[in-house]
């Protein structure tokens, strides 16, 4: 019999759901933490959330934001988040910003708060920094877990990646919509095409468009580059937004598009995502050996096994691997 959610965590959840900042912060730490007993507590939390879907619906949509360092991702997210609040008095927004962990010390400098300034005491907006903890893919080891939790508590969850150049596939696996933020005439369009990163986003944003002529030229260059690479050849071309996080130009249009075009995650989508991140976690710890066992296990599972909780599948997989090791 899986453990029920302990009373302190249950109380924390109730206050976090009311978007009280300190309980919310501590609840996120419950999900992020990694020591004996943490997985059990986390499983109990998510089981509780699944069992009380009417109280904690998975209503939140996750938007991934990636792009080169210096493209102004944080400032742009700040502006879009404030625009969401201003145009919808009931909406709530969480921002999860990822910074890299130092390989030598294990510590991290989480500096994205510098570039946003949110109203003090506003419960509808919440900012949290996270370190990658050595993980690749532009998102952190615990980003998936935290975004899973935040889907229950906020309407929009923005996830800002470390930057570009690594496998940005991870962010699109995590998000319902992914934006790629570029600088005007950064000269990096071609680099992206080479790197295959252009296949990741659902829309492009050319930020720092404070001068109209420069912005137009950049947009033209990007569109030409996209055509050459036949991105979006299957249908409509991908949208390109021109924004300025300084003046706020283009922010309403981008916000409006996100609101209209970001789908709510489907049950299937959720399962696929959980499979992806479980596979990744197993691969990281047990390599191809572990992944093979996981795949065997999930292939053998009955179709309605898909309804099982992520944590249960994870526990089963770890048990199966442990059994083979013995």
């Amino acid at each position, binding site marked *: 019999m899986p453990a029920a959610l302990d009373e302190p965590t249950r109380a924390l959840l109730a206050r976090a759901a009311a978007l009280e*900042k300190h309980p919310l912060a*501590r609840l996120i730490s419950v999900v992020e*933490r990694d020591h004996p007993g943490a997985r059990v507590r986390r499983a109990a939390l998510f089981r509780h959330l699944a069992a009380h879907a009417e109280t904690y619906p998975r209503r939140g949509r996750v938007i991934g934001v990636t792009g080169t360092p210096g493209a102004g991702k944080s400032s742009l997210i700040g502006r879009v988040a404030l625009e969401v609040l201003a145009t919808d008095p009931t909406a709530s927004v969480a921002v999860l910003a990822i910074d890299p962990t130092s390989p030598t010390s294990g*510590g*991290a400098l989480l*500096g994205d*708060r510098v570039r946003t*300034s949110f109203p003090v005491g506003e419960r509808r907006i919440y*900012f949290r920094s996270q370190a990658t903890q050595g993980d690749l893919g532009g998102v952190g080891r615990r980003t998936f877990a935290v975004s899973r939790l935040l889907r229950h508590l906020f309407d929009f969850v923005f996830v800002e990646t470390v930057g570009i150049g690594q496998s940005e596939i991870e962010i699109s696996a995590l998000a319902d919509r992914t934006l790629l933020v570029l600088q005007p005439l950064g000269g990096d369009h071609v680099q992206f095409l080479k790197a295959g990163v252009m296949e990741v986003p659902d829309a492009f944003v050319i930020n720092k468009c404070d001068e109209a002529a420069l912005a137009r030229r950049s947009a033209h260059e990007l569109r030409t580059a996209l055509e050459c690479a036949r991105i979006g050849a299957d249908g409509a071309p991908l949208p390109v937004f021109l924004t300025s996080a300084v003046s706020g130009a283009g922010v309403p249009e981008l916000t409006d598009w996100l609101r209209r075009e970001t789908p709510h995650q489907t049950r299937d989508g959720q399962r696929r995502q959980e499979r992806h991140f479980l596979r990744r976690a197993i691969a990281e710890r047990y390599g191809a050996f572990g992944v093979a066992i996981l795949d065997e296990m999930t292939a053998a599972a009955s179709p309605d096994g898909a309804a099982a909780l992520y944590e249960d599948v994870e526990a089963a997989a770890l048990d199966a691997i442990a059994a083979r090791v013995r």
Partner: protein
Amino acid sequence: MTRPAHLLVDKDGRPTRDAPWIFRTYAGHTNVRASNTLYRDNLSRGQTGLSIAFDLPTQCGYSSDHGLAGPEIGKVGVPVNSLDDFELLFEGIPIETINTSMTINATAMWLLSLYVALAEQRGVSPTALQGTTQNDLVKEYLARGTYIFPPKPSMRLIVDMYEYCLHAIPRWNASNICSYHLQEAGATPTQELAFALANAASLLDAIEARGTFSHDDFERCVGRVSFFTNAGIRFVEEMCKMRAFAELWDEITRDRYRVQTAKYRLFRYGVQVNSLGLTEEQPENNAWRILIEALGVTLSRKARCRALQLPTWNEALSLPRPWDQQWSLRLQQILAYETDLLEYPDLFDGSPVVAAKVEALKEAARAEMKVIAEMGGVLEAVESGYLKSALVRSQAERLARINAGDTLIVGRNRWTEALPSPLLGGDDGGIFRVDAASAAETLEMLRATRSRRSQGEVDAALKALVDGARAGTNLMPLSIACAKARVTTGEWAAALRSVFGEYRPATGVDGQHLALETPRVAAVRARVEAWARAHGQRPRLVVGKPGLDGHSNGSEMIAVAARHAGFDVVYGGIRMTPAEIVQSAVEEDASVLGLSVLSGSHLEVAKLVLDELAAQGARDAIPVVLGGIVPEGDMPALRELGIRAIFTPRDFDLMDVMDRILDVIGAPHDAPEPRVASA
């Protein structure tokens, strides 16, 4: 007959001695009444120029009744809200003859406008005014932090002032290129040379780009560009640095800007000698350091400063008292009038040692300037964070050398045993304290100004300012009109903020690494790992820089050091309200919150932060530590409030600081070296 080389002669060939430089003291505090008294006293004691320190709200463009202003009114300088304040500040001071230097940057145009309005009101022609507005935004972005607007509009305001001053106030230095603050932020002599000259070049480029100056006018503008430098304890090198400055400036203005008139190529500079090297330990020793540093900028006639201001022996402890400032002024007077220094031509011409050292500095500076030029100039190098990171790295290396004992500092890392200093006795404990009640007088004056003036005139003047800002017209005349209408500092800045926006520069923490791998670091990391294993996450340190004090280098050093030790560090940048800092700490589930306060407002800030934490229900969950210039006498009160650890300039060993922070969060001592990194 050739004249003996040691004789200094006037233009008629008669032996003479040089006139001394301008003696200044950087001063201002409490309110305009108290500062006026201070200035008049200083002038009566033989000071020959004024150097006005403004408080942080004035520097950042807030009136004294703004929410961010509260704890800072009159702390590090004088508060100025309107022309009414200027009338009182300069009462009984002949502004037509006195040379006035204002340490003011983002709001420089505003303060100069007040000065012009005051002159006109007194019937003094603005053409008689002489002095300097500091007005260097590059070093604000890099080191000092009292910027408001983004680089482009900031540069436009500066060029507006050059354009206006050229004919209307021809003896005014519209701006100073400051390398002073770069050295305080850790710059090496090479960096000081290169960054300052690149900065000056960017200014001249902007003046040229305006396209409204004839070449003659442009040359005269070049002639008005002055510098504000620093002089450290390595006084031979510093003297050579000043000669290198003069030679490079002559070279740049002649070759790159085609300035034909030799006198407009002169390197003119004022100087404040180094405060960074002054120690809190055995503070009386600082008197000698200040004297030696003064020699670096006076010994060589060719590279002698035009104006000199000296810090005081107790500056590492607190703001100076009038007596402390008098003692520093006396040093200048003895040097200029008792000694024979001013009776000789240059003492170092022909010295192969000096020539070679100057050449080496110039070579290195040229190379660094080339790097900056290839990035697209100094503004780009600011925005990309390159310059800031370079400074933070130099500072970290400087501290590492002190920690390792490679750089010797008497009383700090050698000969630390000493008799207690009798100078620290007396009722005031040797330190100065601003009377907290004095802000009431400032606020009352501001209220009276608002009630007396014509709101219609104010609105019209501000509207004209906003329209002019949008249209690109010169904003000096419009600002002078605002001054006369009794617009306030906060209103003037808010009008321009609405057009230009506000700037958030790159911080010095980006891309920084400490090159420090010692057993001490390993031991601290082991404690961090042990804590992380026990808690299932790394300790999270939120670093907060409250209020308007922009001296961010200390907090950035701590942030970088903490990451190096293995903390997850959240750094939110400068100019945050206590409520914003607490919100950061709460949202990030901080294990510990570190505050950095250098403005002297530590007691007020600590109370505001702890109260806000309590209001958020996180008072017990998040311990608070504080670093800054905290006098010994304030420590019990801070501890009483609930501050768990206090760090002062005495705590220069970064790993000691980390150890004490780990004590606060309950990390075990003697943690075993971990075999693998914790998951």
